[in-house]
Each structure stands twice: as C-alpha cells, then as structure tokens.
C-alpha cells in the first residue's frame, strides 16, 4: 500500500487507532489490549494521587511505547479544563491535550460554550488542543478557527456503543475540515470503526468498546482491522449506489437458446 502517513500538529502517529485507557478491569488487561491494537497513542485522565493504588498507568504505557495524551475528563467548565490541562502538562511534560468539557453526567455530551472558551484559552497558553466535540459541523468549524490541531466529533455519547448516529454530520465535518478529524466516542464494534474511516475520518478514538468487551485484546485487534479496512475503502473509492441492478458479467456474447 502507498504511504498513508497520519499526522497531527506536524507529528506522525504510527496508527489511526487511538485508545482510551478507561474502563479496563486491570492494567495488565489494558496492556494486552494496547499491544493487540497497535495503537501509537493512549489517553489518560488526571486524578488525585491515590497511594493505595498498585501499579502506574504511565509505567505501563511507557512499556508499550505509546504516546500519552492526557484528557480533561470530568471537567464541567472552561476554568476546570484549563487548570486540569495545565496540571497535566506539568505532570506529564506534554502540551497535547484531549479537551473534554461535558455538560452533565447522563449524556456526557460536550458543552459547546465552555468547550470553545477552553480551547481558545489553552491555545493562547501554547497547548496543542484536540477537542472532543459534538457531531456539529458549525462547532467543529469554530474549533478549527480558534486553532485546534484536530476535531474529534462523537459518533454517539461516551460509553453507549451506539455507533455513528449522524453519518451525514460526520461527512459534513470531514468535507470542511482542514485539520484531522478523529471520530471519538460511541463506537461499539469494529464495523462502527470501519464506517468512521469510510466516512473520511482520519482516525478513531475509542475506549469502552475495547476495555469493556468480553475479550479486550481480541476486540482491540478487531478495531485495528476495522480501522485499516475502512481506511483502505475510503482511499479506494467506493462504487456509487444505484437503484437498479447492473450486471458485472458481460452481456455481449450471451448464448441464445
């Protein structure tokens, strides 16, 4: 296959599958899933230090050789998100952040007003901002205009596994995007990941679909295959849909009995 480099903010990532590490029953299970996925970047959350928790997610991710992408999960306001991102930069030595500002607990949908405000503040502070956003083409446009390095629209609410509920909006976001589009959240199974790529997304970010699967490592491999298949299909150019059949066998030379 021809070179198909995936880059964000001028940096190459070796995989179009980004994994969240939330929801796995243990670090060991997460490690096997990461290795099976072939991912090059994993998200982590910033939480209060708990000295009773054994093991370190950072040590595990270092063993896997993947880039660490801190998120601002749990933040409800731009103020909280900015402070959390600044702490993540201090703790992890990266100015990349998956910006997450959600409105409530039962939808976990992004709050667009707080999200855009936080993105502007973080970009002014030197961050490379990858916002988790609604499947709203206008908001995606605004996030690009303020300087986000990617846009990451949801397929469906976090953890639902409902797949991509509004394929039309994802296509609109992709058509207009001048930065990478990462389908983030809502993926349930490998065909959802493939569809995201077929719609033209540059990458897929998922967590629960792998970490809460019965066999996380096997599902991680399935997701990697789904992303790859969808990407190939997107580049290959699918046939147009037709209302009526069109024979693939030649009509010329058909026998007459």
């Amino acid at each position, binding site marked *: 296959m021809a070179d198909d480099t995936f880059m964000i903010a001028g940096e190459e990532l070796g995989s179009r599958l980004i994994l*969240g*590490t*939330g*929801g*796995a029953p243990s*670090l060991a299970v*997460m490690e096997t899933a990461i290795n099976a996925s072939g991912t090059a970047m994993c*998200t*982590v*959350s*910033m*939480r*209060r*230090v*708990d*000295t009773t*928790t054994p093991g*370190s*997610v*950072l040590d595990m991710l270092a063993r896997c050789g993947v880039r*660490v992408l*801190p*998120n601002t*999960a749990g933040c409800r306001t731009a103020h909280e998100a900015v*402070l*959390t991102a*600044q*702490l*993540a*930069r*201090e*703790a*992890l*030595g990266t100015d990349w952040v998956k910006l997450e500002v959600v409105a409530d607990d039962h939808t976990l949908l992004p709050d667009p007003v707080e999200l855009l405000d936080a993105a502007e503040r973080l970009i002014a502070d030197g961050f490379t901002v990858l916002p988790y956003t609604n499947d709203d083409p206008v908001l995606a446009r605004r996030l690009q205009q303020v300087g986000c390095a990617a846009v990451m629209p949801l397929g469906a609410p*976090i*953890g639902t596994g409902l797949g991509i509920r509004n394929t039309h909006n994802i296509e609109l976001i992709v058509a207009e995007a001048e930065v990478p589009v990462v389908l983030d*959240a809502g993926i349930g199974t490998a065909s959802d990941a493939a569809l995201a790529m077929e719609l033209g997304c540059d990458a897929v970010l998922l*967590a*629960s679909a792998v970490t809460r699967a019965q066999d996380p490592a096997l599902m991680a491999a399935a997701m990697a295959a789904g992303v790859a298949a969808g990407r190939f299909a997107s580049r290959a150019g699918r046939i147009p849909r037709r209302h009526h059949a069109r024979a693939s066998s030649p009509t010329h030379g058909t026998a007459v009995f």
Partner: protein
Amino acid sequence: MTLTVNGKAMQVPAGTTLHQLMVGIVAMGHGTAAAVDGIVAPRSRWENLELHAGQHVEILTATQGG
C-alpha cells in the same frame, strides 16, 4: 498548621514547603503535579514555595481514563 490536601485535612509543621509536602505523600518520580489554592505550582518552584495554614493543595497524577 492545617492544610487541605486532596480534600482532606492534614497537619504539617509551620513553614512546610510544597516540596516537603510532596515528598511526604508521593515518591518524587515523574507524573505528578500540584495546584495551591487553584493555581498550578510548577515543579521548579516547589522547593521555595512555603505553604500557609488553610491552603488547599490538589495533587494529581495520571490514571486510566478515556
């Protein structure tokens, strides 16, 4: 004096620096950051940052998350 550290009251000697507090709570390894009264305290300032009674300190690290 009493500080609030990650939401819990903690007694420390007067004049305790953020560096001394951090050493007592977590290994000085990578991956932690602190905010004092809602303002990020860069690691380079921990040594000289003297804490005062009643201050709120949040100490964060990376954990598994989406």
